[in-house]
């Protein structure tokens, strides 16, 4: 039995190391120092410095939005909105905090709000009537290219989770954040994060079984 368990844990450790390269985004101390310089310059009104921040963090922010919302168009919109919010809130940014953590926090909250609104949203004025929507539904080239992504098992699984659980899961797996970091990003307690991740795994395991 011990062998089996050790093997299981070992495979998990190996996989964890394999993802570290992509999720951590290779943030070196030099980069962090550079980001602080940009952040301070942006706080003083230097919009070029802010564009450097956007350029540096477009991918992690977009990735978070994409994993949360599950749609490329929505992810683009949410990522841009995240940076707009960051721009308007620049004065409140505390240099003691990691810039990436601050941006991801804004993105997480925005996506959670967006998903909640979507859940309770009634028929929108700018939505096409059903018959027109069906008639206009042509397969776009980009849609075809992303079909495999959309039908990705993991995406479908993530969709089954409540917004808060999904955010904690994405931050844990795609950004390899610790419980403390996730709690700081989502502005909640460590015990809440522990519980969310546990419940998320339980729900995902149940979803896998029903698939």
């Amino acid at each position, binding site marked *: 039995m011990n062998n089996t*368990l050790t093997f*299981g844990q070992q495979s998990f450790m190996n996989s964890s190391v394999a993802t570290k390269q992509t999720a951590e985004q290779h943030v070196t101390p030099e980069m962090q120092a550079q980001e602080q310089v940009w952040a301070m310059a942006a706080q003083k009104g230097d919009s070029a410095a802010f564009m450097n921040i956007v350029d540096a963090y477009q991918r992690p922010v977009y990735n978070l939005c994409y994993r949360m919302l599950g749609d490329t168009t929505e992810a*683009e919109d949410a990522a841009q909105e995240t940076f707009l919010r960051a721009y308007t809130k620049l004065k409140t940014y505390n240099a003691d905090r990691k810039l990436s953590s601050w941006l991801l926090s804004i993105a997480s909250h925005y996506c959670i709000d967006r998903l909640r609104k979507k859940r309770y949203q009634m028929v929108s004025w700018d939505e096409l009537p059903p018959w027109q929507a069906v008639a206009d539904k042509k397969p776009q080239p980009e849609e075809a290219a992303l079909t495999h992504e959309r039908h990705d098992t993991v995406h479908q699984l993530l969709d089954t989770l409540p917004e808060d659980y999904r955010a904690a899961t994405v931050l844990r797996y795609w950004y390899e954040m610790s419980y403390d970091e996730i709690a700081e990003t989502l502005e909640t307690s460590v015990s809440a994060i522990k519980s969310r991740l546990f419940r998320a795994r339980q729900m*995902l395991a149940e979803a896998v079984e029903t698939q």
Partner: protein
Amino acid sequence: MMNDKYTEKISEWFDNELNPDEVAELQAHLAGCSTCRQTYESMQHVHTLLLGAAAHVAAPDQGFVQRFESRLTWRQAHKPWHIWVALGALLVGTLLFWSAWAISGGLLLVNAGGSALDANVLYQGVMIIFESAASLRTFVNICLLLWKTGLFLISQPLIWLLIITSVCATWLWLRILQLLSRRPAKSIELTL
């Protein structure tokens, strides 16, 4: 026998949040508990799936920064206009809302001698509130006062019309504002 304490520990184990003693305890428990072992295996499967998916970091299409710059410029250019629309909507909504109440007050005075509500009752009610704020009688009187006011208002279709109109006007303005504050028109993006 499955134990919530251990199933939670399994989750923490995946996150490397257990110390060696806790890991040893969990492993010993898993060795003798088939239900927890099953939970471990199903969670392990999910964990592996997620780790595999996390290897792929999605990236936006080329030109994200330029699109953002354009959007920021658009937002900044339209900001003052939005403020004026918001203030206008607020002003119109507030004026309509309070005018409804002002007219209702006027009608109240006009009908003071009527059967629905006497102005003296209103005055007495207010005085009672100040004189014996904590007493049950006050509470009953307040309820009575509200009840009578309500009855009076219900009996006045004009007041209802004004209230409904003001609420609808406010809602419409807010809705227009919401639509206008959305992302810039597609033509802006297409020019990039």
